[in-house]
C-alpha cells in the first residue's frame, strides 16, 4: 500500500507541476457553473428551488468529456515517451502502479468537485435545502467520476496516441450513459421486453447516479461503481501485461 501511495504522490505532484491541472479545474468549474445557472436556470429570477438537482444533473455530461481528457494521458503518455519501461524497473508491481495512478487521478477529480463548494453555500444562503440529499449527490458524483476514470485509464493503456484514447473513452462512457438515458430507452421500449430494458439500464451510470442524487444510497449502487472500477482496473493491468509481453 505504501508503494501505491508513493505512486499516488508522484502522480499528483505531476498534475500540479504543469498548467494542465489548473486548466482542467478551471474548465470544470466554469462549465458546471455556467450549465447550472445559464442552461439550467438555477436562479430563475429568484423563483428557483433550493435544491442542487439542477447542478448534479449536468455532472454525467460534464464528466463524459472532461474525465477522458484527464485519463487519456495516464498510460498513453507513459508509453509514448517510453517512461513506462522506467516505471517497470521500479520495485513495484503493475497492479500497484495502476491503482496508484488511478487513485491520483480520482483524488484530483475529487478536488475539482470539492471546489464547487460555493454552490452548496449558495443554496444554503438562498433557502433551506435538504443537505442529506446534497451530500449523497456529491458522493454519487464522486463515485461516478471514479467509474469514468477507471474506464479512461483502461482505454489509455490500449494506445500510445492520446487522441485515440480520448475518443475511445468518450465513446465507451457514452454507451454507459445512454443505456440509462430516458429518451434512448424510449426508442428501444417498442421492441425489447421491459425486463431486458431494465436490466440494461441497470448497467448505466445514470441509473445509479440518479438514485444517489435523490438522497438514497443503495448497496447495489455502491456495488455497481466498485465492481466497475475493479473490472476496468483489472483489465487495465491485463492490457499492460500484454503490451509488456510484446
Amino acid at each position, binding site marked *: 500500500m505504501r508503494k501505491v501511495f508513493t505512486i499516488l504522490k508522484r502522480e499528483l505532484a505531476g498534475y500540479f507541476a504543469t498548467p494542465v491541472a489548473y486548466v482542467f479545474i478551471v474548465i470544470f468549474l466554469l462549465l458546471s457553473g455556467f450549465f447550472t445557472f445559464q442552461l439550467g436556470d438555477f436562479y430563475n429570477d429568484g423563483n428557483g428551488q433550493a435544491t442542487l438537482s439542477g447542478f448534479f444533473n449536468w455532472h454525467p455530461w460534464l464528466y463524459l468529456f472532461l474525465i477522458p481528457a484527464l485519463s487519456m494521458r495516464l498510460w498513453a503518455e507513459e508509453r509514448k515517451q517510453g517512461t513506462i519501461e522506467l516505471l517497470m524497473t521500479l520495485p513495484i508491481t503493475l497492479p500497484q502502479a495502476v491503482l496508484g495512478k488511478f487513485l491520483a487521478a480520482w483524488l484530483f477529480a475529487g478536488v475539482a468537485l470539492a471546489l464547487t463548494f460555493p454552490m452548496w453555500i449558495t443554496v444554503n444562503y438562498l433557502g433551506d435545502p435538504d443537505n442529506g440529499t446534497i451530500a449523497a449527490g456529491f458522493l454519487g458524483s464522486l463515485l461516478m467520476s471514479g467509474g469514468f476514470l477507471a474506464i479512461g485509464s483502461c482505454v489509455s493503456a490500449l494506445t500510445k496516441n492520446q487522441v485515440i484514447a480520448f475518443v475511445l473513452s468518450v465513446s465507451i462512457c457514452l454507451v454507459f450513459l445512454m443505456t440509462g438515458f430516458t429518451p434512448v430507452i424510449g426508442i428501444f*421500449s417498442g421492441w425489447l421486453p421491459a425486463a431486458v430494458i431494465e436490466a440494461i439500464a*441497470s448497467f448505466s451510470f445514470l441509473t445509479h447516479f440518479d438514485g444517489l442524487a435523490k*438522497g438514497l444510497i443503495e448497496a447495489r449502487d455502491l456495488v455497481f461503481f466498485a465492481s466497475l472500477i475493479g473490472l476496468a482496473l483489472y483489465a487495465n493491468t491485463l492490457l499492460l501485461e500484454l503490451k509488456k509481453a510484446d
Partner: protein
Amino acid sequence: MNKRNLTWVVAGLALVLFFAINIAANITLRPMRLDLTEDKVFTLDEGSKSIAKGLEEPINLYFYLTRSVARNHPDLLEYADRVLGILREYQRASGGSLLLSVIDPEPFSEEEDLAVERGVQGVTLPSGDVLYFGLVGTNATDDSEAIPFFALDPDTQRTLEYDLSKLVWTLAHPNKKRVGILTALPLEGSGGNPMFGQQGEPAWRILEELRAFFEVEVLPTTDADLAKIDVLLVIHPRGFGEETLYQIDQWALAGKPLIVFVDPQCDVDPGASDDPTNPMSRFTAKKDSDMEKLFRAWGFELAKNQVACDRKLGVRQTVRARDGRSQSELPVVFLLQLGEDEASRGDPITRLLGKVGLLTVTPGSLRKLAEGTTTFTPILETSEEAKELDSAQFQFMPEPQQLLASFVPDYKRLTLGARVTGNVQTAFPAGKPGAVEEPMPEEGPADGATEGADDGQTTEKSPGLKDSARPLNLVVFSDADLLHDRWWMREIRIGSSVLVQPISENVDLLKNSIESASGGQDLLGIRTRGKTSRPFERVQEIKRDADQRSLARQEELERELQDAERRLKELQKAKSEGSEELVTAEQRKEEATVREKFLQTRRDLREVRHQLHRDIERLGASLKWLNIGLVPALVCATALLLGGWRAQQRRQR
C-alpha cells in the same frame, strides 16, 4: 494455451463476473440502503410498519402501471417507482400477509378491462396514449378499495404513504366504527314551525360525510343506549341533564373514545328560548354549552362566558362602516382561520391539517386547571395576538370594526382544542343521580356505558365506576359551529347535480379525531413526506422588505399623482369657462408646471416598481458570477503565483 489467449479468457471471465455480481446485487441487495433525505422519503414509517405487521388476514394489492406510456414521462416514472418502492417495503414489512402484483395493462387486453372494473382510472394523455397508474386492494372478505389514479401534484405526493396505509388499514378493518352522537343541535334537521313562519332546516351535511367512513347514529339526549357504539361524540351539550352527564362520565371512566365539542357562543344553535312564539326570543336565547362538572373532574375548564378572539388569524372581510357609505377590509377577530402554525405537528389529529386550514367562529378558550392531574395537551391554538372577550358581545351581530379598534392582544396563545388523558375520578361521587336512595340499583347504572368495559370489574349490578378503569381518552374542542355546513363546505351546482366542495378542513378534524380516538393510531401516526417546495427564502425576504419600503413611497406618489391630475383638470376647466384673454401667462405657466410634475410623478412611480425587482436581479447576478467565476479566478491566481515562485526558485539555482 499461450499467455495471450489465457489473458483473454481471464478478461472474459472477469467481465462475466462483473455482470453476475451486478445482476445478483440488483436482486438481493435492494433492502440494503441508506436514506439520507431530510424527511426520510424512502423509508417506511413506523405507523405503516405496524399496520403491515398487524395484518391478520391476507390482503392483495394490484398495482397498475402502463409502463410503456410512463416511460416517456420521467417525472411520472420516478413517482411510480417511489410508489412501487413503498409498496415493496410494505410487502416486506408484512411478512407475507400482503401480496403485491404489479400489472402492466396492455391496451385492449383483459387486464385493462379488469383494471377498469376494479376502479382504476385510465387517463388519456395528449399523445393519445391511455395511462393507468392506480392501485386496487382486496381483502379476504372481498372488500375492495382503490386509488383510481396517483395524482402527480406535490400536495398529493406528500400524503402518498398515508393514502397507501389508509387503503391497507381500511381493508384490514372492514367493519366500520360505530359513532354515537349526543347533541343539542338539530343535526338531523328540524321540521320548523310554519305557524310562526319558521322554515325547516335540512340535516347537517357532516353526517353524510361521516357516514362514508363510520356508522353514525344521533342518540336521544336522555336514556341513550351506549352499548352499541364504539365512539361517543358530544356536540354542544347545552342543557344536558344530570343523567346524561353521568352516562358520559361513566363512558369516560371506562376509557372509551370520547370527543367533545363545546361552545361558549354557538351561532348555529337555535337556542333554548322560553317562549317559542316570540320571534325576538331567539336573540336572547341561551346558546352556550359547557360540561363544567365533568371538565373539572378531568382537570380542565372552558373559560366562562369568554370567546377566544385573535387579531392575526381573523379572516379578512369587507366590512361596511356604520354610516353605510365607506367600506374597508379588516380582520374579523372572532372568525378565525387556523393553519399549520396553529395545529400541533405532533398530534395525529392535526398533523395532516393545514393545507386549507380550519375555520372557527366564536370559539371558547380551554384551560388546564392548576389542580388537574390529567395530561392536557393543546392540539389547536390561537396565535399570540389573541385575547378572551366577553361572550355577551357576540350575542347579537357584533361589530367587527369596533372589536378590532378596541382589541389589545394578551400575547398568549389560547387553547381551542386539546387531547386529555390520564386517570380521573368520577364527577358523581354519590353515584347515579336520582338513584341515591338505592345503594345497589337493580339495573346497571348508565346501561351500556360500563357493559363494554372488558376489565371485568364492572358487572350489571355494580354501582358504577368511581375511578378510571382505563385512562381517559378524550379529545375536546371549544367550538361547535365549525361542524355546520357554513364553515366547511360550499355547494357547486353543475347542471342538475350538486357537488360539495370543502372550504376548510373542519370535517377532516372531526374524522381524524374519531379515527385517532377509536384506535387507528398507526394510520394517523404517518407523517407527510417530502417538503415539496423549497423556495429561495432569501429572495422572498428581499421582496417583503422591498414591498414594505416601497409601499409608503408608492402611496405618497399616487396621492401626488391624483392631486396633479385634479389640478390639471381644474385649470383646463377654468380655461374653457373663461375667455382666452383671461388666461394669464401665469396660469399657463402653472399648467405647464403641473403637467411636468404629473409626468415626473409617473416616472417616479415606475421607478419604485422597477426598484422592487432590481435588488432580486442584482442578487442573482452576484451569485451567478461568484459561482461561475470566483473559484476559477482563485485557481488561476494560485497557478500563476506558484508558477512564478517556481520560476524564481529555478533562477536562484
